[in-house]
């Protein structure tokens, strides 16, 4: 144990720059994936609610896609997209879209009909009802979905290292190949802390979006 601690300390002493570079890469991949997943998940969620008939097919499709292990998606995307950032991001987006999509649909459908009808009755245009009423009221559930997705993204971004996209996964895979516990610990704990931190930030947003309930 003593030795491991010493090895960890030594690692940070000698590889500070490399560590922070990998951390930055990891955050970079995660945020890129999150951005795309929110864009796709939220807009598809809105479309699902607008075009109700198609909803079950879209949600079902993503439910199935979600079961496919991200490693498999990653390997498949190498075939079509090669190695590097592109396929890694693609694979992770597949993983992150379902919770965002489903929570967006649930949040939008949870807004009571009478609230939408009164908003129309006051003279809001359909667009104004979406922006001022429906989306803000769905926001807390959407953020809960985004939080779930974020944790999954940060954790799974580890495998991006396998196809040369960098990130903290590099430390873990290096540790695996040379059987060094200190590297495994550094990589694993860093990923865990990062995931918790991101979740905490989204938590703050969620609480802000629900401030009327805590008032």
């Amino acid at each position: 144990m003593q030795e491991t601690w010493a090895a960890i300390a030594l690692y940070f002493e000698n590889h500070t720059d490399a560590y922070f570079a990998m951390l930055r890469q990891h955050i970079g991949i995660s945020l890129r994936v999150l951005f795309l997943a929110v864009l796709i998940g939220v807009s598809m969620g809105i479309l699902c609610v607008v075009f109700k008939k198609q909803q079950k097919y879209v949600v079902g499709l993503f439910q199935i896609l979600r079961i496919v292990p991200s490693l498999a998606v990653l390997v498949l995307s190498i075939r079509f997209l090669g190695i590097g950032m592109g396929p890694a991001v693609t694979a992770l987006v597949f993983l992150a879209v379902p919770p965002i999509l489903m929570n967006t649909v649930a949040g939008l459908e949870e807004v009571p009909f009478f609230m939408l009808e009164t908003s129309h009755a006051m003279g809001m245009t359909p667009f104004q009802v979406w922006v001022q009423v429906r989306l803000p009221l769905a926001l807390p559930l959407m953020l809960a979905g985004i939080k779930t997705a974020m944790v999954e993204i940060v954790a799974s971004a580890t495998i991006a290292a396998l196809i040369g996209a960098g990130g903290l996964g590099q430390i873990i895979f290096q540790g695996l190949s040379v059987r060094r516990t200190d590297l495994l610990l550094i990589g694993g704990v860093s990923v865990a802390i990062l995931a918790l931190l991101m979740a905490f930030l989204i938590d703050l947003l969620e609480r802000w979006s629900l401030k009327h309930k805590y008032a």
Partner: protein
Amino acid sequence: MGENTTTAIEYQNVYKRFKDADYYAVNNVDLTINEGEFITILGSSGSGKTTLLKMTNRLYDPDSGSITLFGENIQQADVVQVRRKIGYVIQQVGLLPHMTIARNIGIVPRLLKWDKERIDARARELLALVGLEPDTFIKRYPSQLSGGQQQRVGLARALAVDPKVMLLDEPFGAIDAINRLNLQDELKRLHGGLKKTFLFVTHDINEALKLGTRVIVMNNGQVCQFDTPANIVRNPADGFVESLIHSCREQEKLWEGLA
């Protein structure tokens, strides 16, 4: 009614049948409502009273017939513009939970691009009008208010841009008996001071007779009688109206028996 009465709302041969229904929700309704009247629409569920109300601000459109608002056919007018000129209050209130009371009251003024000071002053004025202390309530959220207080805010919000017509769909239906009586009295007082036309839907005969200057009794989509409360009680137009009044008298007997 003097001779100088203005027609506020006119329904001409209005029919409405919902998709997949084999009956008319509103069946040949023909009514003229004058400016400044407090009209109550009385009927049981499925009588078409809410459908008639919702056609007045185009939440529903009639299948045939026409509805005019101060001479303007609302079918030919811009739907958003029509609605902004009509106050709308419903039983579930429908305050937006993520907005403070001030912002809720300011919804329509903001749509009409009033400036901030004017909206704020209007919100305070309206809160006072509906009997809520402005300083206490203006920054609160709807969830911090009781049902009765919420409905007062609902009224204030509907009155925000001083609409000439107010549509009220069982606004006191979910409020306890004591508060309901208070709110009825205040609504009556409010109507007296405002010179607005009120259309008030209810299934409570006492409420309908107490508040209405005239009462529309509806059954199966048709208007059974449209008259003053006194005339309705004295000369019920048909068996349905008669049975309504009879049921009310039965209740009175129950009270007399208990007292």
